[in-house]
């Protein structure tokens, strides 16, 4: 599964990872796995302001990922 990162997450982890997610894996479980492999990204990944998207739509932590999904983690956004 393709997992994309932006902002400070892309700086810390890189813009993209290819992860073999097990069947039935949720967004929260995948996040735990990424944090375990990239502990320096824990704070922005677990921020309550961070967002997860699949197909340009926000998804909750309980969303069950499918192999074809492209998951994106967005650290807190800021315009203006």
């Amino acid at each position, binding site marked *: 599964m393709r997992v994309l990162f*932006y*902002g400070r997450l892309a700086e810390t982890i890189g813009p993209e990872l290819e992860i073999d997610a097990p069947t039935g894996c949720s967004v929260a479980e995948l996040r735990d796995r990424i944090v375990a492999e990239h502990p320096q990204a824990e704070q922005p990944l677990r921020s309550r*302001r961070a967002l997860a*998207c699949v197909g340009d739509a926000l998804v909750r932590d309980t969303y069950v990922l499918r192999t074809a999904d492209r998951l*994106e983690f*967005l650290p807190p956004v*800021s*315009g*203006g």
Partner: protein
Amino acid sequence: MSVVARLEEEALRPEQELAALIEQATGDGAVVSFAGIARPASEGGEAVYRLALEAHPTLTLQSLEDIAVGAAARFDISHVRVVHRCGDVDAGEPIVFAGAAALHRRAAFEAADYLMDRLKTEAVFWKREIGESGSEWIEPTEADYADRERWS
């Protein structure tokens, strides 16, 4: 009613955006606009040379449109215009323009205020200050989120 939401990769000219809004506002009695400028110093007082604004390929424009449409639906306004820079913005250069036209001033003032409170916290950008102390990610403050909550 017109709603304009645009992502600008080149220089943003607030005076041109304001002129376009006034031209559209035939029959209206009020136009209120806000221009955000890249500050030359960080909160800590260190020199900032430029802002780097990273955008998402689809969600950034979508967020600008959503915010502009939100203002049009919420306030008694005739026209709304949001233009936001992406890429590198030198200190002193405009980053954002937000404006609204209405029959009467109160709705236009409120719409501009609403637009900026939402843009600060919901526009999909990742912003870095680049200056004498290197590069630092900038995120909304708790005060910014509290300002946004005023409209919930």
